[in-house]
Each structure stands twice: as C-alpha cells, then as structure tokens.
C-alpha cells in the first residue's frame, strides 16, 4: 500500500525499539484473540475504498493513511504474514508485513491517531466488516506491548489507582455533592431534595462521568433535580462512581473488565436493581454492551442510560415538562458509542421533543451521524489533538447548517470536543447535555406547607 511508505508523524510512545520476544508474545496473543468473527473481518476486505468518505479523518485530511481500509489492512497484513500460507510464502501478493518496531509505530499512529472507533466505516463497508472492531483488536495488541500512547494510558492508570479517571478524592466528591444538594434545595425551595450517597436498597445506582463534578456540575445537578421530581429511589456511590472506561479505547480488555466490574460490585454492595449511566457515550457502550463480554458473565442487574430513564419518566407522567422554557433552536449531536454502537437512538429525540420548543436534526443524523472527533480516547491523546480538531470540521459544518443556538448531546466527551470545536470554528453555540434541558423545562410542584 502506498500509504505505508509514508513516515508516521507521531506520539512520544513511538520510536521505541521493541525486543523481538515481546513482539512474538504479542503476536501469539493476537492470534489467540482471533475468533471466527475477527477471522472473517480480517479476510473479507476487497479494498473497494468506499469506506473512505465515511471517515471524518479522511474527509478532512485526504491522507490515504486515514482510509478505514488502510487501517484494517495494517492489522490484516500482519495477521496474514504470520498466520497464513499465502502471507508466509507469497507476501508480495497481499503486501503482508512483518510485525516489527516500525510496524508498531505505524499502528500507533494510524490505529490510535487516526481513528475514534466510531464505527461509521463499518456501517458503510460494502462487505459488512466490523472495521472499528479490528482497529480495537490492533489497539489491544499494542496494549500488550505497553505501546499505548502515554497520555491515554495515564487516564486508564489514574482510573485504576484512584477509582475514577480524574483522580477525584472521596472528600472532594462528597463535598461537591453536598453543595450541589444545597444549591438545588435553595433553587427549588424544597429541602427534601437529596443527593443521596451509599443508600443501600435504593432502586437506582447512578454512575457519573468524573468531568461532571469537576467541570460540569450543572449536568450532575440536573440529574438530581430530575430524580427528585420523579420521586425516584436512587443513590450515588461514595467510592466507585465513574461511568467512564478508557479500557474501551486503549484496547486492554482485562483492565476494561476490571473498571466495569467495580460498578458491578458497587451494585451488589448497595443492593440496587438498575445501574443508570449518566450521559456518557462510551460509558454506555462499555458498561451496557462490552463489560459482560470482558467479564464473561451476565449482569445480575439492569443497565440503562439516563436517557432511557428520563424517557420512561416522561411517558409515565412521573415528570412534566414545559418546552417553552427552552425556546431557542436546539439541535442534537448523536454520540457514536451511544447511538451507532449502543442502539439508543430515539429516546433522546423523544425527550427533546418534550423539553424544547424548536428541535432540528442534523444531516446526517441517528446511526449515520458523523463522529465529533472526541471519541476513541482522542480527547486524552494530546499528540493527536491537531488531527482531532481538524477531523471535527465535519461536525462543525453540520452544526452551522442547522442554525441552532444550542447543541444538546448526551455525552461528556462529545461536550468537551464540541466545546473545542465551538471555540476553534467560532460556531457561537451553547453545548449542553440533554438532562440540562430537561431540568430547565421541569415543572416542579412547590412543597405544600404541611
């Protein structure tokens, strides 16, 4: 492939010389990870190139290294070279490649630096290859070689050592909840409102993105207000409250399983029925869909997105909304992990139609939506930040075309990325979570004197 001749730009973790024994071990583990699904994906590509225009990286940089088929080929060529007769004896035919330090560098640059694992290419593949899954498989191999970009790996390490990916201390977490509770009580004039912590037997355990207490407390207080209005029996955990799981992005299944297992154990400790995940795209995909696969066991509890819960509240009349409180034009950004890879497609639309007066869709939207560029761990991989902002141009153009004043998105990684795009491309919009709009539109009954 021509693009392979191009020297990768890259990450500080590249440029290392890896011992051949490590490479061999990683290859063996890669071989073991190839089940029938991966085997089919790795052998099915016809390099028709139709996937190219589905990738926001390729659309904005035009580099062949950004074409999904190229990224797929990087992994397939190594598999072929090492584990197939054709690749071993006539490598020229399919450009089968050895797995050496140079190839590792290329994998780091292209599999980490040019992909947000959004899955849009998979949907558009003429064959039907789970390209994003193969790219994650490549990332898994890099994780075994300790070749994950340092900035991404440190996010995972922080979650492992401190219990959440921002390293928030328990005291700070509890303090934040306490002042949010006070603020909310004062705002709605009801001292019965609580931000409950470690309430055994509560129906719902609510897991949040650590960025909420740190940078977006409005999002957290919105959830508190909604749960209160719905009369929900809910709780937060004092220790493992983190919905995020960057193990989904660094490809390390073992770590990813360990992080998700913490939420499972907290569910068990508190005896809750439903794990409700805050508005977090990858957190939903990781904990709802992937965690049982990583842990190789079925969940003993139900896992829902806050969107699904809010939708149920509206349908059952547990909360009432006044859309006139959100009169400005609102558009919706669909987070890839929640929508295209998570299957939560209609709930956010149902909610917004009840919570805002003027809702417009982006084009394309739903499962065909473009990634904002913040997924796949891109937000934490600073060496690739320039590419991330450039790749977000597609999303910025989509937003501009709607002429909306507010962009709602049920994902905090997306909120961060959209915030950066907003500044960089001067979009002049507000970026909010769906819950914030719902909280704004809530019709709350004042408590009676009695």
């Amino acid at each position, binding site marked *: 492939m021509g693009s392979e001749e191009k020297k990768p730009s890259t990450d500080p973790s590249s440029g290392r010389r890896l011992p051949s024994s490590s490479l061999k071990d990683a290859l063996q583990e890669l071989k073991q990870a190839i089940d*029938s699904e991966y085997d089919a994906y790795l052998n099915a*590509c016809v390099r028709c190139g139709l996937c190219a225009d589905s990738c926001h990286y390729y659309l904005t940089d035009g580099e062949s290294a950004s074409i999904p088929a190229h990224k797929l080929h990087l992994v397939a060529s190594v598999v072929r070279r090492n584990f197939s007769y054709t690749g071993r004896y006539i490598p020229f035919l399919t450009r089968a490649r050895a797995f050496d330090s140079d190839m590792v560098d290329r994998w780091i640059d292209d599999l980490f630096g040019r992909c947000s694992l959004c899955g849009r290419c998979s949907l558009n593949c003429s064959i039907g290859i789970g390209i994003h899954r193969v790219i994650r498989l490549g990332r898994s191999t890099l994780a075994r070689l300790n070749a994950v970009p340092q900035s991404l790996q440190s996010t995972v390490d922080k979650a492992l050592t401190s219990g959440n990916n921002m390293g928030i201390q328990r005291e700070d977490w509890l303090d934040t909840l306490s002042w949010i509770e006070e603020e909310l009580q004062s705002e709605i004039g009801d001292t019965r409102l609580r931000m409950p912590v470690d309430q055994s037997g509560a129906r719902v355990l609510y897991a949040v993105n650590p960025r909420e207490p740190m940078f977006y407390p409005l999002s957290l207080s919105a959830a508190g207000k909604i749960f209160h209005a719905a009369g929900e029996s809910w709780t937060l955990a004092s220790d493992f409250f983190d919905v995020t799981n960057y193990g989904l992005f660094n490809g390390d299944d073992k770590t990813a399983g360990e992080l998700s297992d913490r939420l499972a154990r907290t569910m068990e400790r508190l005896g809750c029925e439903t794990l409700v995940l805050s508005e977090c795209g990858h957190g939903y995909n990781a904990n709802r869909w992937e965690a049982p696969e990583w842990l190789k066991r079925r969940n003993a509890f139900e896992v829902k997105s806050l969107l699904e819960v809010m939708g149920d509240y509206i349908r059952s009349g547990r909360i009432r909304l006044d859309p006139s409180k959100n009169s400005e034009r609102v558009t919706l950004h669909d987070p890839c992990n929640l929508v295209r890879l998570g299957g939560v497609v209609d709930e956010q639309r149902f909610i917004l139609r009840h919570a805002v007066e003027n809702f417009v869709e982006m084009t394309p939207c739903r499962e065909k939506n473009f990634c904002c560029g913040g997924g796949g761990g891109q937000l934490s991989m600073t060496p690739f930040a320039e590419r991330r902002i450039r790749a977000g141009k597609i999303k910025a153009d989509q937003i501009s075309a709607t002429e909306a004043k507010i962009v709602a998105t049920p994902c905090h990684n997306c909120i961060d990325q959209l915030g950066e795009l907003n500044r960089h491309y001067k979009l002049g919009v507000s970026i909010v979570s769906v819950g914030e709009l719902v909280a704004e539109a809530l019709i709350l009954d004042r408590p009676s004197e009695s």
Partner: protein
Amino acid sequence: MNLLTLLVTVSIAYCGIALAFLFLQARSRGKKIFYSAARMNAAPGIRYAFTQGMLPWEKESAAHHLPTYLAGVIYHAGIGISLFFLFCTLLNITLPALLYRTGGWIVMAGLISGFSLLIKRGVFRSLRSISVPDDFLSNILVNLFLVFTFSWILAPQTLPWLYGAAALLFFYIPAGKIRHCMYFFLSRRFLAIDLGRRAVFPPAVGR
C-alpha cells in the same frame, strides 16, 4: 473428458475444498458467546443486512458512489451468469438461444464494469494507495474469464480458452481476495448479529 475439461473440474474441486477449509478454519476459531443482554432479537438485523441494508438509499457509501456501486452490481451479475454458463458446458447442458443472447449482454456489461473498476483502481490516487497486487490480479483474472465467456457465446470454438481462464481463476480464488465470495457472508452476518442485538440494525426509522 478432455484434458482441459479435467483441468477445470479439478480447479473447481480444489477451489471448493480450499474455501470449505477456510470456512471451517474460521469456525474452528470459536464462536462468539454473548453475555450482554440483547435489546432485540438479531434475526431482523441479519435480514436487513443482507437485503435492504445493501441498497444505496440505506448506505451512504453506495449512494455517494453510485456509478461504482452499480458497476459492482453489474460486474457480479456478469460473473454469476458466466459461472452458470461454465457449469452448463461442463455438464453438457444446452440452454435456449435467447438465454445465451441475454446472458451475453449481461456478461458484456459485467466486463465493461470490471474494466472500469480496474481502471478506477489504477487512476484514483486514494484507491491506488490502498491497493495491493492481489487487487489487480484478481480483477484481471475475472475479467479474462468474462472475456472468454463472451467470446465463447459468439464463437463456441473458443471454449478451450474459456476453460483455461476458468481453471486459472478457480486455482487462484482461495489465495486472493476473490475468496470474499465466502467471507462476505460470514463477515456481514457477524456485524449484523452485533448491531442487530443492539437494535442498531435495522434502523428504527422504518422498523
């Protein structure tokens, strides 16, 4: 049975056995067991993936590259007809003349499509950059097969050439990308199961 007929028969048998081996090899790698609770039965998703999900109004990549998409469809139709004619000759089955005439046009259209795709691969920088020698060789072998099918329809005495091209093609299939004739079904089914369980396939609009 003359030597060429034997050669084609052997090549078809080899191709079938090799593809069966690859299929069994894929299956032997272990079936994925799902532990997550499915939101939906995967069956409608699988049906969608193999039918409506391949249509241009459902798939942006096809809609944006309609000429390529159509060329691909016609190319495959031409290949299908050529294979049908080949098997008929091997089994000494004579078809109505109308069928040969109609089939001939489809084979010709397939041939034009095949050459167009080959030229596109060579001309467009982005496509060339992701191509490997196998992509060109596979296309050329299939095109040769179509050329000789068409020439055999016009001039039956060129049958040995058709057999020669067919034998080459069948011997090559398991080694190159044409084996997607088998992997396509596996791959698409796996993706559909995954997305079907998650209620992404079929899309909610129109479900």
